[in-house]
């Protein structure tokens, strides 16, 4: 097989995958408003994805805030601009670092978890068992999970942002003797509505992407137990790629609406 035909086959497979993923997303919206609403399962998934990610998101956010401040401090010091630190950190974290880092962490934890869970349910015929009992596995397994990630991720991002800012405050407090009140006054003075809203909106899309890709990879998992590993792995890889694409589009759109 020539290199050209290999590339063209891979490209064709990629386009088919995009098509199938879009169809899967379409099914999500079609099923979203159908009864039964599976509220109990939705709450269970929100708890699993939200509450159980708090520690990971919190620790990561804290370290990011801490390290970000420590790394930026010497440069700002050179220009005598250390007082700008809270503003710089808050804008960077709220607009970009918080949402993207939290989403990448959740893609690893939640996306791979969904891929592996649904994948193993597929290969052990549990999804088929739901299907043959005349129930709707898509509604129960997929809709609830995508909805849970979409709802929980913005909350996790806000939580991660707050912890990251606190991490940065600790450095400022230890190194610059800046008080809590002064630090956060500067933070809120620097932040605008146009910083928080687009970041929160894009977090919804990030959450949707994590749930969608994880569910898609797991729901259509093939090739036995090896397929489960592959589903979990490709869920993370595809989601990470998708997160950056969404981020690029979100920044582009935000720039048009708010800054031009």
């Amino acid at each position: 097989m020539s290199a050209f035909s290999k590339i063209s086959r891979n490209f064709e497979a990629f386009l088919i995958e995009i098509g199938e993923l879009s169809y899967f997303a379409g099914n999500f919206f079609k099923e979203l408003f159908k009864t039964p609403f599976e509220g109990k399962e939705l709450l269970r998934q929100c708890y699993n994805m939200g509450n159980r990610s708090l520690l990971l998101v919190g620790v990561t956010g804290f370290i990011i805030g801490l390290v970000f401040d420590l790394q930026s401090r010497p440069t700002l010091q050179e220009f005598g601009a250390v007082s700008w630190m809270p503003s710089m950190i808050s804008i960077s974290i709220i607009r970009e670092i918080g949402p993207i880092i939290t989403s990448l962490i959740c893609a690893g934890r939640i996306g791979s978890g969904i891929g592996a869970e649904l994948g193993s349910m597929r290969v052990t015929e549990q999804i088929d068992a739901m299907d043959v009992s005349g129930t709707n596995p898509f509604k129960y397994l997929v809709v609830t999970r995508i909805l849970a990630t979409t709802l929980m991720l913005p909350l996790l991002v806000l939580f991660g942002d707050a912890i990251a800012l606190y991490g940065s405050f600790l450095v400022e407090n230890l190194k610059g003797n800046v008080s809590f009140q002064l630090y956060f006054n500067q933070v809120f003075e620097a932040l605008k509505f146009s910083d928080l809203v687009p970041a929160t909106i894009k977090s919804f899309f990030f959450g949707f992407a994590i749930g969608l890709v994880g569910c898609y990879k797991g729901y259509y998992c093939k090739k036995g137990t090896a397929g489960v590993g592959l589903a979990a792995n490709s869920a993370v890889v595809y989601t990470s790629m998708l997160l950056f694409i969404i981020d690029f589009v979100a920044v582009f759109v935000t720039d048009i609406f708010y800054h031009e």
Partner: protein
Amino acid sequence: MMTTTSNTPIIEIRNLKKSYGSNCVLDGFNLTLKEGENLVVMGKSGSGKSVMIKCLIGLEQADSGSITVMGKDVMALEKDELDDLRTEIGFLFQGSALYDSMSVRENLEFPLRRHTKKFGIIEDTTPLVMEALKNVGLESAVDLMPSELSGGMKRRVALARTLILKPKIILYDEPTTGLDPITSKEIILLMQSIQKEYKTSSIIITHDVDCARVIANKMILLVDGINYAEGTFKELSESKDPKVAAFFK
């Protein structure tokens, strides 16, 4: 096995064909199941037995042919109509396919709570759950998780989950595979007693000759994608055809 069967066909499969790429699995398979009958389908591994019952329940799409279940053309049904029909058909999976994140009780409640059209809204499912578990002799396992059950217990719980919807037809996909001989015998006896109590019609996919001997009213040998031989257990077990005799050695 002595059971009361009527002449009304409850399932009819005609000229069923199914291929995966160039691999032809079913090449014009036919089957008729009458009410109250236990039909055993035997065949080598990979001969298309499981594919056949998956086409029958709508889990796989056949390439051509017709499948009629209780007078309805399965291949022409809309998703909602198919789901309604599926409440009349129980399916016992080879690996039991219990939902491993749910307890035994939740496994049984799961289909029950979602079929409000057939059962209405059930406030307290406990009596129905306990009745189904009593029929398989596992009332004590109601609050256990699937990971705490043995292979035989899992098979029984899966059977209870099937029975809770009070199906008219039960499809068994290798019900005794992977079980020790004593547990296999228990499962076969359980299938018999369920058939008597619930007056179900069954298609049983199996390699287990003992299971076929005990339970079959009629048997089909599936070879090369077609009904190679049909008859009662006695007729087939006495056949001189080497391909048929090979199953009974």
